[in-house]
């Protein structure tokens, strides 16, 4: 109840304690754990992640190298630990820009309606008409490989989901009494939209952004796998899987451990999304 009160006092979100608590706690623990790993990577990693030691190429897991070594003799555990930095960054920036753009566009479309809504919704239709991956790849190829291009692509492609979620909420909320009250009190459109409607509309998007982070993470891995994202020798889980796949029959550990890392981080986001949705009463 103490948690409930303080969160309620801070955000005005009424928490219902039920089946959502367990996934929420697990999700926060996993993400918190990865965050600590990322922050303290220099202390935790036993070796330099890009140091190549020809003497220990393709060694299976052992006491010296718990996750084994890859074909260049690099320590896989160290690379997984350093990879957390890049992959957390991918999950965060891949979502944040899309979230901000989508929320703004969705608010404007839902609030003003009419031709503004028409134009913005047709724009969304255009983006949705392209297959997600094809559009993303096209943008990255045009801008040139690299994480910067990846973030731009995720923002340009990913905002549509947020825009549609927020717009649908706005369509309902703008006819509610408190919105009409705000208008009748002479508040500006900006104030009504962002101070009154948005705080009530955004919960669903916050929950969705957690599941979206999983998708972004996997996309980031896929892009790196295709050689369009993080460039070698930087340690990143998707890149590691791509590099290790040629040795899958003789060195399963090179691909398996970064794969498990992706799964674990994705699970953290997914659990957090589930727990948040359950507790905040948002149905997806």
């Amino acid at each position, binding site marked *: 109840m103490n948690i409930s009160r303080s969160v309620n006092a801070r955000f005005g979100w009424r928490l219902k304690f039920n089946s959502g608590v367990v996934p929420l706690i697990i999700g926060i623990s996993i993400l918190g754990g990865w965050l600590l790993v990322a922050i303290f990577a220099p202390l935790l990693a036993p070796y330099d992640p890009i140091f190549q030691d020809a003497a220990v190429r393709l060694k299976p897991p052992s006491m010296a190298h718990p996750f084994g070594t890859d074909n260049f003799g690099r320590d896989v555990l160290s690379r997984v630990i350093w990879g957390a930095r890049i992959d957390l960054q991918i999950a965060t920036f891949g979502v944040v820009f899309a979230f901000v753009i989508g929320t703004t566009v969705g608010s404007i479309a839902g609030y003003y309606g009419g031709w503004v809504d028409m134009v913005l919704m047709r724009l969304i239709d255009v983006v949705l008409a392209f297959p997600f991956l094809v559009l993303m790849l096209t943008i990255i190829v045009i801008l040139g490989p690299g994480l910067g291009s990846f973030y731009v692509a995720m923002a340009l492609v990913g905002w549509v989901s947020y825009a549609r979620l927020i717009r649908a909420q706005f369509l309902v909320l703008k006819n509610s*009494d*408190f919105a009409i*009250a705000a*208008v*009748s009190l*002479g508040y500006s459109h900006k104030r009504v939209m962002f101070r*009154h409607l948005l705080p*009530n509309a955004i919960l669903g998007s916050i929950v969705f952004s957690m599941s979206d982070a999983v998708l972004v993470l996997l996309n980031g891995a896929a892009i790196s796998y295709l050689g369009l994202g993080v460039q070698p020798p930087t340690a990143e889980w998707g890149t590691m899987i791509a590099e290790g796949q040629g040795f899958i029959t003789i060195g399963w550990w090179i691909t398996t451990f970064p794969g498990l890392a992706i799964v674990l981080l994705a699970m953290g986001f997914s659990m957090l999304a589930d727990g948040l949705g359950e507790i905040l009463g948002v149905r997806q």
Partner: protein
Amino acid sequence: MNSSVPLLEVNDLVVHFAGSTMGLFNRSDQTVKALNSVSMTIRSGETLGLVGESGSGKSTFGRAILRLGELTSGSVLFDGVEVANGTSGDIAWLRRETAMVFQDPYGALNPRMTVGDAIAEVLTVHNKIPTAKLNERVQELLALVGMDTELASRRPADLSGGQCQRVGIARALAIEPRLIVADECVAALDVSIQGQIINLLIELREKMKLSMIFIAHDLAIVRRLCDRVAVMYLGRIVEEGPTDRVFNAPCHPYTQSLISAIPEIDPDKPLPEQLLGGEPPSPISLPNGCAFHPRCPIAQDKCRDSPVPALRGEDGHLSACIFSSESIFPQPT
């Protein structure tokens, strides 16, 4: 303020909502005729009760005159200024001079904002008070509506319906309006709380010289609170006059049946046998002539055949029944 100009003058206000049922093959006219040529005057300091069944256009009227809904035609003069097709500057001015109190006390408040913040917001947006005195003024307003000032840090969900409605009134008063539109503002409350809120409104009206449009379907409350009453039926005013005269000597058969349907506390007094039957016709296809004739106990052929009867009468007591000058009603004793 010019005292010879009425605070609010509404002339021939029409609000029609375009129908949304546009099938592929049948495009019938589905226009909902919510308000049909409504005229009304409210003087400064006066409280007007607006009564009628659900769907009679009361709330549409309340929202239309505050420009919270679209108007089809007609004029709305607030303090002599035309606001029906006014500039955005005129509308902004209207918003600073008027306020609305809503039916659902919880729904009218932003659930994510403390009630203190909600009141403070009005004061800051309209620069009513220097920031240093903001808290003091919020406390003052809460005290004015009889709220414990400690509740300022609560959110609507932590308060009762009556408390929320007091906050709604305090927020309306924060703007220092000259006209308040109260849309069924006690209908969602318990009877004892209703009484408290009504007394609060009466007290505030005296103290602040407010004009009020009180929209309600509870006639007993209207009788207690209002100087004048207007009775609406299917988007038209069918009777209008000073409260005591309308209640004691109703001229329109619709008003008559509404008043006779007020339940009495005395269990020995039976309800009248001739209660109004049926439901009002659809506002999409209004009946010819007097819109009330399909349900009227005294309707004759000419009620259907003649044009819509105009409001007429003397000494400010007007009625829209073609028989209203012929005294065929038994006057209640």
